[in-house]
């Protein structure tokens, strides 16, 4: 970017998603993406004690910690209150990156109403083009590629996981850490958190963030053990179709699809999954799709990179065994 364009593009802010004091992996992707834009990068951390060295290694030039006074800090409205305090303090922010989770998109929506910002969700990339921030995304279950320009004063882009790979840089300068306090808005104060219980976590990577996802569908006929084994060999997460979760073969949190978790792993393996459009909508951004299905007419073969028309009760154990064997 030229000096002139740099000024027009402004600074980049990144909302850092975190859990129990640890940065979510997708936030490191967002910082890496921001760093690649060649502009000043400001990380926004709701709460105190951000791991500033880690944020700096991924691209943050400055870290802004913000406490929210008067409401639960995790509520969408509170996060928006935090951003509304921090963005003017940074000054000249042209682009805000948030994760394209339900929570991230809701933050984007409220901030857009308050500031007149334009929001693009589910973006796979963002660039300053023809004097405007433009986000790229695929739509209609992956069938179309679009570019969406933001015409408002601020671009809020909700970025899909794995749009870029997080890369830490050696020798990043110690970032400046600035502390802020935001007053909770009436919208945040109105909501009371009666209880909040952490959902049990598995040893495997979280579905939405996993680089490899192995999905079982109706074809597994109730037995997910083979799916889990393959996921473990590949270091991936286990996903399921709605049929499998509705049948109670696995918890609902494993559901991948338009109404379940949206995933964009580097590798998706579908076992006994037909590839219905509701399912496809949640995984169409997967980089490589491998499918095993006994029905040659299953829709998943229309978008699988590598398909095996075969019986998964034969293919799956053989696949797991062969992967293990080659690794020695």
């Amino acid at each position, binding site marked *: 970017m030229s000096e002139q364009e740099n000024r027009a593009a402004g600074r980049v802010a990144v909302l850092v998603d975190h859990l129990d004091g640890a940065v979510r992996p997708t936030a490191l992707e967002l910082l890496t993406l921001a760093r690649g834009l060649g502009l000043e990068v400001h990380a926004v951390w709701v709460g105190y004690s951000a791991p500033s060295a880690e944020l700096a290694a991924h691209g943050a030039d400055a870290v802004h910690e913000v406490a929210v006074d008067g409401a639960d800090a995790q509520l969408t409205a509170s996060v928006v209150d935090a951003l509304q305090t921090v963005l003017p303090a940074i000054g000249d922010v042209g682009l805000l990156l948030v994760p394209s989770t339900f929570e991230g998109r809701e933050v984007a929506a409220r901030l857009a109403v308050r500031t007149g910002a334009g929001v693009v969700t589910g973006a796979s990339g963002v660039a300053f083009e023809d004097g405007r921030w433009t986000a790229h995304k695929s739509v209609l279950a992956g069938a179309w590629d679009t570019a969406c320009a933001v015409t408002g004063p601020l671009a809020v882009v909700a970025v899909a996981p794995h749009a870029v790979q997080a890369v830490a840089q050696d020798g990043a300068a110690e970032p400046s850490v600035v502390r802020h306090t935001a007053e909770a808005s009436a919208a945040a104060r109105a909501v009371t958190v009666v209880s909040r219980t952490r959902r049990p976590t598995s040893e495997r990577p*979280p579905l939405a963030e996993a680089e490899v996802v192995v999905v079982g569908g109706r074809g597994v006929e109730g037995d997910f053990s083979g799916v889990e084994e393959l996921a473990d060999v590949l270091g991936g997460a286990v996903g399921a179709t709605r049929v499998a979760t509705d049948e109670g073969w696995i918890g609902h949190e494993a559901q991948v699809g338009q*109404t379940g978790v949206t995933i964009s792993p580097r590798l998706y393996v579908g076992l006994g999954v037909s590839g219905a459009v509701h399912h496809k909508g949640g995984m169409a951004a997967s980089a490589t799709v491998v499918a095993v299905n006994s029905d040659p007419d299953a829709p998943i073969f229309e978008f699988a990179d590598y398909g095996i028309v075969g019986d998964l009760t034969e293919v799956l154990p053989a696949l797991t065994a062969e992967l293990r064997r080659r690794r020695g």
Partner: protein
Amino acid sequence: MRVVVCVKHVPDIQQPRSLRSDGLLVRGGDDDTLNELDEDAVEAGLRTAEAAGFPAEGHDVTVLTVGPSAAVESLRRGLAMGASTAVHVHDDAVAGSDAIATARVLAAAVAKLHAEQPVDVLVAGMAALDGLTSLVPAALAELLGWPQLTLADRIEVADGVVSVRRETSTDVEELTAPTPAVLSVTDQAFRARFPNFKGIMAARKKPVTTWTLADLDLAESAVGPAGSATRVVHAVERPERPDRVLVTGDAETVPALVDYLSQKGFA
């Protein structure tokens, strides 16, 4: 108890869908239908009102949509399920609005309904199956200045307080807020009832109120492309991938798949 449910008329996702040269979704086909996820919102709205005594006098469930003429079909579906009244905001200037601009129109309509008879809860589905942004419920909460309780799978309203249970990606939460509040519901808990013949017949006689932007005191510049802070500048159908591999067989196919995976760096 007054409940308003936002519904959207969308292209059927089972059918091929495409974008126009200006990047907007082609709408208005015969297969356009009520967004499936909004059926769950209607169900949630009906159950919430029923717990308070609906359909007796003094209770009301209104289905509300913003969209072209055909969108009235989605209102009829909501009425057939049991909603008592329907409002259709129909104005050509609204075409091409992005999610935030659409929320602006919905919010103005809800505010007008609220002024006529106070609304207790506003319910929306978790996403529209066309754009899949999930921006509208939170935007509505911000525009109306009402608390937001989204992605609920349990709803209770008592003494002017709404309680919901929801699952986030990490937690299970119970939240409360005073009415009026904006809710969205997941597709997990409110499996929609199927309209019966009586309901379908009754829906034909129920009133559908039509409002234009003028009825809502909204300027044309607040909606449509002019009122949207985003604009699609490029849209192309993704070409068929030429390099797909399809093999037939069982265990004997596995070594070749593992070769493929190792080429890609996974094995």
